[in-house]
């Protein structure tokens, strides 16, 4: 029995390291899960004079996708978002730190998957939502509570495993 102890310790350590190898350090747990979505009231991209506030969406389950025209991964995500929008998923955008003011032209050119895009030039709203980088997507329920935060691109696998079950539950 005694001679097996070092091997057991080694196996346990290797197990921990192996699990650690497959965890994404970017997946920082958000303190907002289960809390009310931080309020903001921002101008809407491409619609002068109009503003958007999360409070406008009370009673609706919706997605807030934080993106930017300068963000390369966001353009990769664009196709998937277009498909989701066509399937009727209400995606709202937060145009984060778009200092070159390219969002409106880009959406016109590439097509927009968004119901509306709020314009956060200074980036403060992003910080208030705990954004660390783009793209990031939040799921907000009917009561305005953030239920999930997805860091990185939404691909088909992430959509099927993370979003679909949650949206089904929230829309009931």
């Amino acid at each position, binding site marked *: 029995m005694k001679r097996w102890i070092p091997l057991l310790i080694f196996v346990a350590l290797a197990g921990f390291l192996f699990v650690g190898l497959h965890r994404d350090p970017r997946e920082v747990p*958000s303190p907002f899960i289960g809390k009310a979505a931080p309020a903001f009231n921002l101008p809407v991209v491409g619609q002068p004079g109009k503003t958007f506030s999360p409070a406008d969406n009370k009673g609706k389950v919706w997605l807030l996708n934080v993106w930017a025209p300068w963000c390369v991964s966001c353009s990769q995500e664009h196709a998937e978002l277009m498909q989701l929008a066509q399937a009727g998923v209400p995606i709202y955008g937060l145009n984060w*730190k778009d200092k070159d003011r390219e969002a409106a032209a880009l959406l016109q050119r590439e097509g927009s998957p968004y119901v509306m895009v709020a314009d956060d030039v200074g980036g403060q709203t992003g910080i208030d*939502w705990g954004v660390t980088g783009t793209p990031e997507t939040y799921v907000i329920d009917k009561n305005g509570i953030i239920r999930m935060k997805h860091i990185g691109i939404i691909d088909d696998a992430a959509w099927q495993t993370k979003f679909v079950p949650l949206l089904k539950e929230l829309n009931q």
Partner: protein
Amino acid sequence: MNATSTSFPRRRESICSYKNWIPACAGMTMLVVALMSIAPARAAEAVPVGNDPVIEQRMVNLAKDLRCLVCQNETLAGSHAELAEDLRKDIRQQMKLGKSDKEVVKYLTDRYGDFVLYKPPFRSYTLLLWFGPFLFLLGGAVIWYVTLKKRRGLQPVDQVSAAALKQAADLLDKNN
């Protein structure tokens, strides 16, 4: 300086040529060189946006213990990531509003969670982190105690039986 200067002959020479002044002169030269070397270093530093050295110092002190969320192995004070710059700006602004360090840290943890803190807070899920080393120490103490106890059970060398000693002596004799 005035007291001594009258006793010296008035000659047009560098003060460094007076024997008694050599240490002072050397000191001054070193000071000038030091100042000259500092000046460019200061110029290369980040632009002090706040222009308030007190707040700047507080911000840097605080940001040294906070994690940059983009380059996760850098501190908020040392990172050049854009988000770190924005957050430093936020920290300055909060401090200007009269917030205490604790309130500023809360401002950040409210948004980014405990992950921004390099020093983990006491929570139920960080207990193992805080007390883990002491557990290892305790484990070491247990092993130490058990080993010592086992050793006490062994027969000391000076209590070997006479027959065994004789056998050893015989063996040694034979080889000699």
